C-alpha cells in the first residue's frame, strides 16, 4: 500500500490561518461492490461531512464481479480531498479510490441530450451549429430536434449556451465518465 498522505513542507504543523489552501477540482474514480445501498453510502458520506459533488456518474462496469464504477467530480482544498479519499476508502464495499486528476491527465467525457423547439431560421441555424459541434440528430419533427452530443464538459456547456438562443427547451446530461490515459488500468 502506498503512503497516500501528502506531507506538509516545511516540516510540520497544522495549516494555520496564514496558510489558506486553494480549492481544487478533482476527478475520483471509486470502484465498489454493486450491492444495495452502496450509492447511498457514498452520497451520504459527501452530504454528511459537508463535501461537494459537482458531478456523479455510476453504473455497473464488471458484471461478473458485480463491480460498479462511480466517477465523482469534487472540489475542496488538498486537505479536504485527502480526507474525502480516506473516508471513501473506509466504506466497507469500496475496493479502490483513484484520484484521476492526481494520477495524470485523465480523459473525461459527458453525453447530453438537448431538445430544441421552434420553426424557421433558428431551427436551420441550430442544425448547422450541431454539425459543427458534431452533435447527432436522434429525433426530429418539423417543430423540434433532439441532439445527442458527447465531449468534454466545456464543449457541452458551450453548445448548450449557443442553443439557448435558438429555442432550447430541455437538457439531459449523464455526468462525467473518466478514465486514465495509457495502457495501464486501475
Amino acid at each position, binding site marked *: 500500500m502506498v503512503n497516500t498522505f501528502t506531507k506538509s513542507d516545511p516540516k*510540520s504543523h497544522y495549516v494555520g490561518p496564514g496558510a489558506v489552501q486553494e480549492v481544487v477540482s478533482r476527478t475520483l474514480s471509486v470502484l465498489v461492490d454493486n450491492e444495495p445501498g452502496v450509492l447511498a453510502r457514498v452520497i451520504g458520506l459527501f452530504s454528511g461531512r459537508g463535501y461537494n459533488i459537482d458531478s456523479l456518474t455510476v453504473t455497473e462496469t464488471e458484471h461478473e464481479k458485480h463491480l460498479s464504477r462511480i466517477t465523482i467530480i469534487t472540489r475542496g482544498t488538498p486537505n479536504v480531498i485527502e480526507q474525502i479519499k*480516506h473516508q471513501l476508502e473506509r466504506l*466497507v464495499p469500496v475496493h479502490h479510490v483513484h484520484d484521476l486528476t492526481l494520477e495524470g491527465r485523465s480523459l473525461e467525457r459527458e453525453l447530453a441530450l438537448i431538445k430544441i423547439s421552434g420553426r424557421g431560421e433558428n431551427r436551420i441555424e441550430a442544425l448547422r451549429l450541431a454539425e459543427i459541434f458534431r452533435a447527432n440528430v436522434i429525433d426530429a419533427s418539423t417543430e423540434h430536434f433532439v441532439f445527442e452530443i458527447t465531449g468534454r464538459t466545456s464543449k457541452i456547456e458551450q453548445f448548450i449556451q449557443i442553443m439557448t438562443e435558438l429555442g432550447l427547451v430541455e437538457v439531459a446530461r449523464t455526468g462525467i465518465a473518466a478514465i486514465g490515459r495509457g495502457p495501464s488500468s486501475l
Partner: protein
Amino acid sequence: MARTMTGAEMVIAALCDQGVEHIFGYPGGAVLPIYDELFQQEKVKHVLVRQEGGAVHAAEGYARSTGKVGAVLVTSGPGATNAVTGLTDALMDSVPVVCICGQVPTHLIGNDAFQECDTVGITRPCTKHNWLVKDVNDLARVLHEAFYIAKAGRPGPVVVDVPKDIQFATGNYVGPSNIAHKTYKPRMKPEQTAVREAVDLLINAKQPLFYTGGGVINSGPKASQLLREIVRLTGYPITSTLMGLGAFPASDKQWLGMLGMHGTYEANFAMHDCDVMVAVGARFDDRITGRIDAFSPGSQKIHIDIDPSSINKNVRVDVPIVGDVAYTLEDMLRIWKSKTPQLDKAAHKAWWKQIDQWRAKKSLAYKNSRDVIMPQYAVERLYELTKDRDPYITTEVGQHQMWAAQYFRFEEPNRWMTSGGLGTMGYGLPAAIGAQMAHPKSLVIDIAGDASILMNMQEASTAVQFELPVKVFIVNNQYMGMVRQWQQLLHGNRLSHSYTESLPDFVKLAEAYGWTGMKCENPAELDDAIREMIDTKGPVIFDCRVATLANCLPMIPSGKAHNEMLLGDDVTEEEVEHAISEEGKVLV
C-alpha cells in the same frame, strides 16, 4: 460444512460460533422467531433491558470492559430507532457492537407496514456498515461478516436487519471459518520507514510528549503493556485523552493526567510546548486541541492510527503511521532498543523541571468545605475508598463525568467506560449493567449526575432482574451542571431551563425499583456512607448531595489555546463570565 436450518436458528448458531455469551435485547413482533429460538437453548444468555437504547449502551459497557464484541437484539421500527443513539455513540467511540434487528417480512418492506422503518437507511450514517438480509442463504455469511467488521481495524457498530420471513425460511448455515472479506482489510502492520522516522524523531527530541487515546485500549491489553514499556524506556512524559484513561497507570510519575478542555495544567502546557509529540490511537478531537491554530505550534507530530482517515483530519502531522497500536509500538521498541540511543539528557532534565513547575500549580486543587460536600471531594473519596477493589467505572455526561476523569485514577485499561465522542447522557447506568454482566464479581460504579441518570433510569429494573449489584453514585447538584456552567460562561448566567425543579426522591426511587437507596449531604459522614454503599450486597443508588454551583475547572474556554487555561483556585465569578470571546461563543 453446511447445515440446513431456519434463519432464526442461524442467528443463534452464529452467535454461538462467534463466542457470544450475552446478548442485550428487547422482544417485539418482528423478532419473535429469534426469541423463540433463544428460549429453546441455554448457550446464549439474553439480558432483557427496559428500552432498546439501554441495550446498546449495555453492550457497549460489556464490550469496553472485556474487549469482546457486544451483541444486541431488537425488533423492527421503534426497536431499531431507539437503538440509534447507542449506535451513534458506539461509532463515535469505536466500540464493537453487532445489533441484530427484526424487520417486517420482505413482501411488506416499503409498504409502511406496522412497525416498519427503513432501518438500514436510518442506521447507514451511524454504523460502520449495515446489511438488510433478503435471502436466508446469505444470513450466516452476513452475520459472521458483521462480527468481523465490528471488531476488525477501528472497531464500530454494525446492524444486521433480518426480515421476519427470512427468520422463518430454511437455508444453509455456514460457519465462521473461511469468511475472508474481499474489500475490508485494515492495515495492521505499519510501514517500517515511517516507524524508523518516528523513532529517530523521538530519540532526538528535547521536549517530547506521548499523547495517547482510546485506540490503545481498543488495540488490546498488549498495547497498554507495550505503551508502559516504551514510556518507561524513554523516560518521556505521557498524557491521555478521556477515552485513553487506564492505558497508562495514573500513579506513575511520568503521568501528567488527562489533557484537553478539562485536562490538567501540566498536560496542556506540555502539549503546547513540546517539540515532538507522539499521538497513539488518538484523533485530535476538538475537546483536546482547543483553538486549532494555536495547538502545539512548535512540535513535530507523529500519529499512529489504524484508521487513515483520522490522520491529517484536524491537525496536519509530520510522520503518519497507519497501523495497529500494539504492532507499531512493538516495532518502535525493537528499533529503539537496536539503536542504543544517545538522548539529550540535559534537555530532558530541563523539560521535566519545567513540567514540575507546571505541576506545582496544582490545577486540580479546589476549596474544600466542612458544611457541604464538594463534588470533587465526593469523587476523590469514592476513589480512595474503592481503589483497592479494582473497580469498573462508568459515567453519564456532564460535570460529574469530568470530575470522575480528573479525580478517579485508573491503573489498568478497560476499567473506564464513558461516552466521550457523542456525549450521551444516560449512558452510564446501562453501561454499568453491561460491565457488571461481564464481571459479576467486580465492583461496578456508575458515577452519575442527577439529570443524566433520569435519562435511562428504567434500566434499574434490569439490574434487579439479573441480580446485578451495580452502584449508582449520583453527584447531585440539582442542576444540569455543565449546561449551567456554560450559561454562566456564555450567556450572562441566565440559567435557562438548566435547573431540575422537581427531582425525584432518589432514595424512594431506588426502593421502588427494589434497590437500596442512600443519601448523604454531610462531608463528615461521606466516608462511612461510601463504605456502606460498597458493603451493600445488591444495587445501590447513592444520592450524594453536593455544592450546587461548583464549576468544573480547570478549563480551556472554547476558542482559547492550551496556555490560556482557567484555573480553579484563583478564578473569580467575573473571570468565568468573561472567559470566552465572541468568536469562542459559536463553538461547542
